[in-house]
């Protein structure tokens, strides 16, 4: 009897859910209010909330600019934020909520590679354009375009390019051949090292020690003293900005600050990080998609406007989300519609003048973008040039 009842209950429940889905898709037509509903998935809480806050501000500033100029063909951009908390599981539910409940037209997200990789199939199933602005794991675009996921695009350089550029500079300009690895234990940190290893033989270099830290780790001294004793010439660190000041301070404690520089990417150039451990950050080498000191008119105007608006200098995430929102707006404008298929086609053919150069997409939906190489000199980031490299897609 109990089984009978629960079965009946299950059937009724399923029918009700089905009805609800049908009714919501039938009656709540997307953007009937004449706006462009843009979902933004980013870590709004948790250890990476800082990135989410910058991403949202960047995208909101772009939306404000676009709306202020009359919108896209009369449509105003309405940004709906989803909190991924920096974890794949929350990222997927945020994406689902944005698609099913908020009926967004397009999604930008996430900052973390692990989250973006998990979001890709969800966006693909729903046929919603997912434009990534800040994840760098190469797998994201290996799987996109001709790789399979036709709805995923990325307007951000990949770790493969970054690994090559950093290693090349360290080997050719600094003469380093022995490295220690201290990267974040995520798809981003691990992939960056995987690609670094691919290029090590080219520069006759080797990795002596390899360690990955969990987000939120605060004690690096054991590993730093191991690195000191191993005789490494530089520490390859691909991590998050929040760990850099802690690592820097503890480098001072174990006596390697100023002797073994950090190379890679973990926002070594942020003013507060340099202030936290100036001696450790001196000589740090970083390849970034963008940085506030980048010398272009559009970039400088962005920094000025952002700083005036939020009383805080923008970071890389604020910039890429600002630029990507503008890029999407241009694609919508060229498509003269918010029809997802038309916007996707427009994006594939776009020639967009970004602050770091022209953006075009390859057949893997990956933007061709340069990386900016910088070195901290006398407590300030000095730009050493912009480098591009073609992506070597696996066959």
């Amino acid at each position, binding site marked *: 009897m109990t089984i009978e009842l629960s079965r009946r209950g299950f059937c009724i429940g399923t029918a009700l859910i089905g009805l609800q889905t049908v009714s919501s898709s039938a009656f709540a037509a997307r953007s009937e209010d004449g706006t462009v509903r843009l979902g933004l998935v980013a870590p709004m809480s948790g250890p990476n*909330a*800082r990135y989410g806050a910058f991403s949202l501000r960047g995208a909101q500033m772009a939306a404000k600019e676009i709306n202020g100029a009359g919108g896209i063909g009369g449509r105003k951009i309405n940004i709906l934020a989803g909190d991924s908390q920096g974890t794949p599981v929350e990222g997927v539910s945020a994406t689902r909520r944005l698609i099913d409940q908020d009926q967004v037209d397009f999604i930008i997200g996430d900052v973390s590679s692990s989250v973006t990789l998990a979001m890709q199939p969800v966006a693909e199933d729903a046929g919603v354009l997912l434009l990534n602005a800040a994840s760098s794991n190469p797998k994201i675009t290996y799987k996109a375009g001709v790789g399979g996921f036709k709805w995923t695009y990325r307007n951000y350089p990949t770790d493969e390019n970054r690994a090559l550029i950093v290693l090349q500079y360290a080997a050719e300009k600094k003469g380093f051949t022995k490295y220690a690895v201290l990267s974040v234990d995520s798809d981003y940190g691990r992939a960056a090292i995987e690609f670094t290893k691919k290029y090590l033989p080219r520069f006759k270099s080797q990795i002596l020690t390899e360690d*990955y830290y969990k987000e939120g780790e605060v004690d690096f001294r054991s590993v730093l003293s191991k690195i000191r*004793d191993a005789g490494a010439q530089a520490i390859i660190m691909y991590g998050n900005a929040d760990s850099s000041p802690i690592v820097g*301070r*503890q480098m001072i404690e174990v006596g390697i600050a100023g002797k073994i520089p950090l190379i890679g990417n973990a926002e070594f150039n942020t003013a507060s990080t340099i*202030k936290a451990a100036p001696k450790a950050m001196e000589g740090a080498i970083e390849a970034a998609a963008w940085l506030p000191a980048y010398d272009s008119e559009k970039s400088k105007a962005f920094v000025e406007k952002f700083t005036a608006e939020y009383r805080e200098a923008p970071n890389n995430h604020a910039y890429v989300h600002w630029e990507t929102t503008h890029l999407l707006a241009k694609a919508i404008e060229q498509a003269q519609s918010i029809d997802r298929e038309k916007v996707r086609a427009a994006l594939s053919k776009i020639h967009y003048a970004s602050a770091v150069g022209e953006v075009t997409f390859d057949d893997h939906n990956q933007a061709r973008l340069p990386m900016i190489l910088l070195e901290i000199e006398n407590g300030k980031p000095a730009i050493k040039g912009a480098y591009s490299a073609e992506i070597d897609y696996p066959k």
Partner: protein
Amino acid sequence: MFYTIIEQVVNGIVSGSVYAIVAVGMTMIFGVLRAINFAHGEYYMLGTFGAWFAIEYFDLPYPVAVVIGVVATSVIAVVVGNVVMQRIVGAPAEAGVLATLGVALILQNTIILVFGGSYKFFSGGYIEPVTLFGFTLAEQRILIIIVGLIVFVGLELMVTYSRMGKAMRAVSQNIECCAVVGIDVRHIALWTFILGAGLAALSGVLTAPVNVSVYGGMGELITFKTLPIIIMGGLGNVRGTFVAAMILGVAESLVATYVGLQFRDTVGFATLMLVLMWRPHGLFSAQARF
């Protein structure tokens, strides 16, 4: 080689001192309230935020900020103690788990709501490195070890000689008998809780200068570090907690060096399992609390 091992043991002792100060509060609360305080890490976080706020907004010197952080947390603990903790004395275990988890979520999200979810940079403290017997340590870390020792000697004296301490021991051993002989159990529970929260806050403000980053969710990690320590030390046993904290600190340090940093967080529960296989009640008896 030998030098490295000694250096890692010293590093472990520093981490152990931090764990010990946080865990001792949690174990005392367990002793008296019979409830694992899942919000314990949040008091660590509140103390850190209090000190950060004092430095950032009022430009106060670090020692004053330490006092402000601990006092502010104790005030919050008075409120939480009265509203929540006193009510779980004698209540079923699951009531304590749910109540403290709820408190943890409320405290964490209130801080995120007020100050935002982003990382804050803690600028106070004494971070200059000093060299002792060939080892380099930040001044702050030496301070942490010294304060850790003072706290444990102080607690030992308090629970042995003071009236309140004796009452705490009595309540931890037998609540019913205490009630029969006229000890105000709820009053003792409240003060134990405030003391525990204050110690967690003290640990937070002491470590903030070396941990640098301050954020709303920082307490979670501490709660989960503290759990294996208090179980290993024999739930409610102060001396056991101190030893367990040191074991965990040193084990973590050695694992981070010789196995890999990514395995550090697994050490706590792995060590706990090993200890429990050998001594199911923990290293020290739970009967000989305090």
